[in-house]
């Protein structure tokens, strides 16, 4: 059940082949939804679900798709799943779906998704494809959560909406950093994570 290949499909994207840190994909949504933690987590889970299911579906029908129109078929599958996720969110978590606005819809154009479908699902069976989808989705989510936690902590002094930095600090002159909420800091935070990651994995460094 868990062959070496499936293991690699699941674990590689978490660090060694992380879609955000190593392949530098999905940066737009990483910048857009990470001002606070809650939307980032919801976004991450949505991407995991869509990626795992679309990987499985494409993998199941991979031998029947004509190569000339495969991109269209992939888009139809992804779009259908994204709409399901979006409607689910509107029904059960309306506020967060408002916060995420177009970005759930834009999962369709997320480079990580198309990349995994093209590179993995079209050549592998459903089970490894499922693991690959979960792995890449998790790799993306981990980065999203780290960036969002840093930005919400220093930008609003809270995590998931709960006040974390005690009132005592504010009374003694501490202030939230407004720059953290602005998009440039998402880029710089991602850059810092990449910096640390490369320093820990010297084989990933460019010459």
């Amino acid at each position, binding site marked *: 059940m868990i062959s070496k290949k499936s293991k690699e499909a699941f674990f590689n994207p978490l660090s060694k082949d992380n879609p955000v840190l190593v392949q530098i994909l999905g940066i737009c949504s990483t910048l857009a939804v990470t001002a606070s933690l809650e939307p980032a987590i919801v976004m991450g889970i949505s991407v995991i679900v869509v990626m795992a299911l679309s990987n499985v579906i494409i993998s199941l029908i991979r031998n029947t798709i004509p190569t000339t129109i495969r991109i269209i078929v992939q888009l139809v599958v992804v779009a259908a799943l994204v709409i399901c996720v979006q409607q689910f969110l509107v029904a059960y978590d309306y506020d967060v779906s408002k916060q995420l606005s177009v970005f759930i819809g834009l999962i369709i154009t997320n480079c990580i998704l198309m990349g995994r479908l093209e590179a993995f699902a079209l050549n592998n069976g459903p089970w490894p494809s499922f693991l690959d989808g979960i792995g890449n989705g998790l790799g993306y989510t981990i980065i999203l959560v780290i960036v969002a936690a840093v930005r919400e902590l220093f930008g609003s002094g809270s995590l998931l909406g709960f006040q974390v930095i005690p009132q005592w600090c504010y009374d003694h*002159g*501490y*202030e939230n*950093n*407004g*720059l*953290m909420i*602005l998009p440039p800091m998402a880029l*710089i935070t991602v850059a810092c994570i990449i910096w640390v990651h490369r320093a820990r994995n010297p084989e990933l460094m460019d010459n």
Partner: protein
Amino acid sequence: MNILRKYMNKIQPQFRPGGKLAKLESVYDGMETFLFTPNTTSRCGAHIHDGNDMKRTMITVVVALLPALLFGMYNIGLQHYLAIGQPDATWLTMWTFGLLAMLPVIVVSYVVGLGIEFIGAQIHHKEIQEGFLVTGMLIPMIVPINTPLWMVAVATAFAVIFAKEVFGGTGMNIFNVALITRAVLFFGYPSRMSGDEAFVKIDSAFGMGQGTPVDAFSGATPLGQVATNVGDTLQPLHNVVGEPISTCDAFMGFIAGSPGETSMLAILIGAAILLITGVASWRVMCSVFAGGLAMAALVHIAPTATYPATLIDPLAQLCYGGFAFAAVFMATDPVTGARTRIGQYIYGFLIGVFAILIRVYNNGFPEGAMLAVLLMNAFAPLIDHCVVSFNIKRRLKRAANK
């Protein structure tokens, strides 16, 4: 001196590889070259030697900053004693108050910035560069006096790491480090960087000169007052206690503002020092003023109440805010500015234009000099590239015609 030399020689082995304090090697080298002329010489080729090394250049800039710094200290005291209703305090009292108020900011800026530079140099086994000497002096002069020290420390650390060290240290940075510090504070803690409470120190400085502000007190800078002007004519500008001020006061510097940038006169003395010693480029400096004047005259042609800053007289525009300071000390930074001669004219002119443009047409920012310089910092390499490639094309054409 001999004793010092002997002492430095004696402790030297401890700092070399294998020594007890090898981790502090670059600190030792930094101290040694600070105290003595290095006795290493170049080994190959012919070199032209000039006494004007980087250390001397940096010191010249610091000397040029001194008039503005000393006046800035006096002005902090002046604004403080005006605000608490003791305008007849002596100038020495005022100056001492300003000194005590600014000293912590200067210390924090140098300790944080140099600390990071020392650590960075040690990690990369490089010599410590002198670049922060000027930056560390610029920072206290351009941040409002009421900025909390920890904010200065955070912003300085951020600027030195992300605007300087990641690009490769002194001489490699794209953006002016001091201005990045100010920009971080400006966007991170906007309430501390503008408005009525930022620029006039009311609290005591080390126990000196506390008081309650007089009734007429308003800490708004002249540009802050202009930004909130209502009506088709410019209401008379006033100082912190409501007395009217003239453009001459602004030129001399007796107005509220960041410590170093209120007095155009002191800044012009600094400019003269920079130009006589040849440290700064007159092309950049003059064209910033030219650009600012041109843009100020242009917006003054059709003044409207919607953008009250269009009502200011063009020459007065240059005296208010941080314009002169940016023109003399920020735009002329040789590392972040354009290097080709024609490029320097374009670069400086556009800084002047954008500074006034942002100041006048962006209601969110009363002052635009900082953003203008940072914007043109980003464009400086492009300007140089265009000038150089234009030159190459022109000469190729000339060669082909022969």
